[in-house]
């Protein structure tokens, strides 16, 4: 278990709901549209405080993992209100305690900006996905727009101490981890993206 990352997100759990209040309302419809494609046994990575549970279709069986026990404490209340089952587990995405090919769908929301070794984490997702499974992601990535990208590079040393890295190439990392892209969509500029992929 990555203790440093765990501590960082334990601390962030106190303010996550407040900070994401407006974002939930603005990005929520995109998350709902993406997660409506969820099928079969589903793994949600980095459940956080459970803000995204409401965007899943009703009556799903979801296993939701997070590295932070403090996040999971808060997520438990939201999991209880979901009209299906959500099984919460404390786990590091780089070391998932599931057998190979366990899930039909893996869903992430703003996760791989924060995983210290993103390709290792994504490779682990590929391992637990069934060969005909699907990866559904909504992530923020480094912008290719010059001035915004430069700013993200400059700010990342600061933001990564408190929370996410701003300059990740998550689309490239998905491919490096052995996935084949099915669809990439810009949600906000080229910073917020929906990424759909399947195992290669």
């Amino acid at each position, binding site marked *: 278990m990555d203790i440093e990352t765990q501590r960082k997100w334990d601390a962030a759990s106190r303010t996550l709901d*407040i*900070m*994401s*209040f*407006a*974002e939930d*309302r*603005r*990005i929520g419809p995109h998350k709902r549209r993406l997660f409506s494609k969820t099928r079969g046994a589903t793994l949600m990575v980095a459940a956080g405080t459970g803000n995204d549970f409401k965007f899943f279709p009703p009556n799903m069986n979801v296993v939701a993992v997070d590295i932070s026990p403090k996040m999971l404490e808060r997520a438990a209340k939201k999991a209880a209100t979901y009209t299906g089952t959500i099984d919460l587990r404390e786990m590091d995405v780089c070391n998932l305690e599931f057998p190979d090919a366990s899930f039909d769908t893996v869903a992430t929301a703003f996760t791989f900006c924060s995983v210290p070794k993103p390709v290792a984490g994504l490779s682990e997702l590929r391992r637990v996905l069934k060969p005909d499974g699907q990866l559904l992601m909504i992530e*923020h990535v480094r*912008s290719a*727009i010059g*001035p*915004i990208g430069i*700013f993200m590079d400059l*700010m990342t040393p600061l933001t990564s101490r408190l929370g996410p890295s701003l300059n990740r190439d998550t689309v490239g990392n998905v491919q490096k981890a052995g996935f*084949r*892209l*099915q*669809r*990439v*969509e*810009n*949600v*906000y*500029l*080229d*910073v*917020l993206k929906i990424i759909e992929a399947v195992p290669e």
Partner: protein
Amino acid sequence: MLFAIGDYLAGILIGLATTLAVRAIIWPGMDMVLAMLIGMALGTVVHLLVGLALAPLVGMFETMVPGSLIGMYGGMLLGMRDSMSAGSLTLASALIVGAIFGVIVVCGIKVYNRILQGAVFEASN
């Protein structure tokens, strides 16, 4: 609609705060390169503080992305402008320039967002 108004208000607020911070530190006749660098640093700090305060109400991305351009690049421009005593002689006129800069950046980002939004890759089955 409310969020769109909030985006513009956030841009105006970051523009105003950046202008105030630059006006407080940069004096006419200061070395222009130094003024640009100080303005950029001030604008960055200001946008982070104001942006973090507004993010829960407007949204983190929609505040921080335009805010970074207003703070960082606006701070540079305003710093250079103040060091040369170019344009705004009074604080009020400088604040108007800062607010207009904020609105222009937010508007530009919204237009660019409309252009970029949508699928950029779809695999053929």
